């Protein structure tokens, strides 16, 4: 046996031939259309806009979204999702899936809570990859404490007038629409609404946040709303019930982040093992030194545990009874595993791992955004403790 990205994956009895087909075809697509350019895109801080329609054509953008809007829903389950997130993470350039798949967090609020007219306007174009959507929750004043957000939307006739700003918004530079959390009522969670804001509305502006530790390929932005008039019809869900929309959205986001983080850890394992079997020090292969063997075994141990935990959470989603506390802790399990694997792989690679242009170096720089974004480790533990009624 060897330890590669594929062989280090535990068997999953839920996978059928169509799942394997999906993995095979998606990998071919990624290896031809993304892998050879991924480094350059990351260094350039930009993904060519043509990638979206290509990803739409292979069915990636539409995965899990209804057929009536150009998606593929019938027969799609959590395992297709897991595979897609794994395969995208295998690229080893986190900014690519972050930006390419950001509709995965931006679009569900529209489809689950928006009017039919909004869905028909937005979803087909987003799923075809011709227009883009992002999710705007975090503000300069804070991200973890969503209930305290300060961007206001004040009713004026058939419009809301929006003032405030959002920051660290993935896909924010490219977005044609932003599913935005705003304050329509009083203080706290009960005054929050979700509003779909078109970015071509007067009063909207944005600046790029292009000096990041990682995710360079992704267009992260600060968004400003200066008396932006948005029709009341763009409300996603009921007024002042937006907190619930945000919270339900998080489960999906945390699952795909966890799947991607485990896969990033597995990339680190693969790179480290390959190197350890080739590199010789003190007259033998690195892989023959007990200290290095234990590092490798411990990486695999943590990856195994995370994979099994991911599977259990997906099983609960498939069964229709996911536990948000368990999912929150899975996200922590996955970020700690990714962190550990990135660290140990980097140690095994030595100086060569520190040089730009290899997957481990980049994954090492992309640990923190995963440990902070989508709900930080601290907030995840707190959420879980509350869920468990501690």
């Amino acid at each position, binding site marked *: *046996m060897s330890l590669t990205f594929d062989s280090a994956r535990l068997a999953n009895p839920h996978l059928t031939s*169509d799942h394997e087909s999906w993995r*095979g075809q998606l990998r071919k697509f990624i290896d031809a259309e993304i892998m050879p350019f991924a480094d350059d895109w990351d260094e350039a801080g930009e993904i060519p806009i043509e990638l979206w329609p290509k990803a739409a054509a292979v069915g990636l953008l539409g995965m899990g979204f209804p057929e009536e809007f150009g998606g593929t829903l019938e027969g799609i389950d959590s395992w297709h999702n897991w595979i897609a997130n794994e395969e995208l993470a295998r690229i080893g350039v986190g900014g690519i899936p972050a930006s390419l798949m950001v509709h995965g967090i931006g679009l569900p609020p529209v489809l689950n809570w928006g009017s039919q007219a909004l869905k028909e306007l937005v979803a087909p174009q987003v799923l075809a990859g011709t227009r883009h959507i992002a999710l705007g929750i975090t503000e300069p004043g804070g991200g973890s404490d969503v209930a305290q957000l300060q961007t206001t939307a004040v009713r004026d006739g058939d419009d809301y007038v929006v003032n405030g700003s959002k920051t660290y918004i993935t896909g924010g530079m490219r977005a044609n629409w932003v599913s935005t959390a705003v304050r329509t009522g009083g203080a706290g969670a009960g005054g929050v609404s979700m509003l779909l804001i078109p970015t071509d509305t007067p009063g909207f502006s944005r600046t790029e946040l292009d000096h990041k530790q990682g995710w360079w390929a992704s267009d992260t932005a600060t968004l400003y709303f200066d008396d932006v008039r948005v029709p009341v019809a763009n409300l996603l869900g009921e007024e002042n019930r937006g907190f619930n929309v945000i919270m339900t959205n998080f489960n999906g986001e945390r699952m795909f982040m966890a799947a991607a983080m485990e896969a990033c850890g597995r990339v680190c394992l693969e790179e480290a093992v390959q190197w350890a079997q080739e590199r010789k020090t003190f007259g033998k292969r690195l892989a023959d030194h007990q200290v290095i063997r234990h590092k490798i075994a411990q990486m695999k141990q943590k990856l195994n545990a995370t994979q099994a935990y991911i599977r259990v959470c997906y099983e609960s989603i498939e069964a229709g009874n996911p536990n948000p506390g368990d999912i929150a802790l899975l996200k922590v399990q996955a970020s700690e595993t990714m962190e550990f694997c990135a660290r140990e792989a980097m140690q095994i690679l030595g100086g060569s791992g520190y040089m730009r242009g290899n997957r481990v170096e980049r994954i090492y720089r992309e640990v923190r955004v995963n440990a902070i974004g989508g709900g930080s480790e601290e907030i995840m533990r707190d959420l879980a403790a509350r869920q468990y009624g501690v």
Partner: protein
Amino acid sequence: MKVLVAVKRVVDYNVKVRAKADGTGADLNNVKMAINPFCEIAIEEAVRLKEAGVATEVIAVSIGDKSCQEQIRTALALGADRGIQVETDGSPEPLVVAKLLKGVIAKEEPQLVILGKQSIDGDNNQTGQMLGALTNMPQGTFASEIKVEGDKLNVTREIDGGLQTIALNLPAIVTTDLRLNEPRYASLPNIMKAKKKQLDVYTPADLGVEPSAHLTTVKVEPPAERQAGIIVESVEQLVDKLKNEAKVIS
């Protein structure tokens, strides 16, 4: 025109295969499998013939245990209309495959049979030719271009000296070379639709064939490790090494 395409399940071409320690074969534990790349080209060509209105039906056939249904499903997702699995234990040798395919041809009576020129596991490059001999059908191997004209098939073949074009009477057998086409990706919606396409399973007995083994694998071992190269200082030194060390010129 009915087109039959043979597809084989093989280790993915990206996998670095290792020999088992006991030398009985390659270690296939947990290894990623895929359609043989040449078979993928065969499917693509058949689907293009259908899209061009030349072929009316494309049938994908694979021979092996249940797991090869995965590759048949992929072929269906790529555009084949229906699939056939001939159920065998493991992967039989080329002659048996050719006999089984002959059985399928007798049932389906295709006008055109497209196979890969070889599969990347055994690299035998035999099945298409054996099938031609067994069925008495004309064969165009190593095809880089095919064109149907009436009841004739023009096949451009890649041969050592360059390209050769031959005209075959249909029904005929073609084996694909790399440059015949560039296969598409199957999209997720097509993968899901493929689940509903017909897939029939036959046993060798259904086709009147008794699988037999004529080949024995004695030992599987990795090739000798390559020595590091050197940079020669002069043409004289190069010639000297080619003559006296590598002994490739005299």
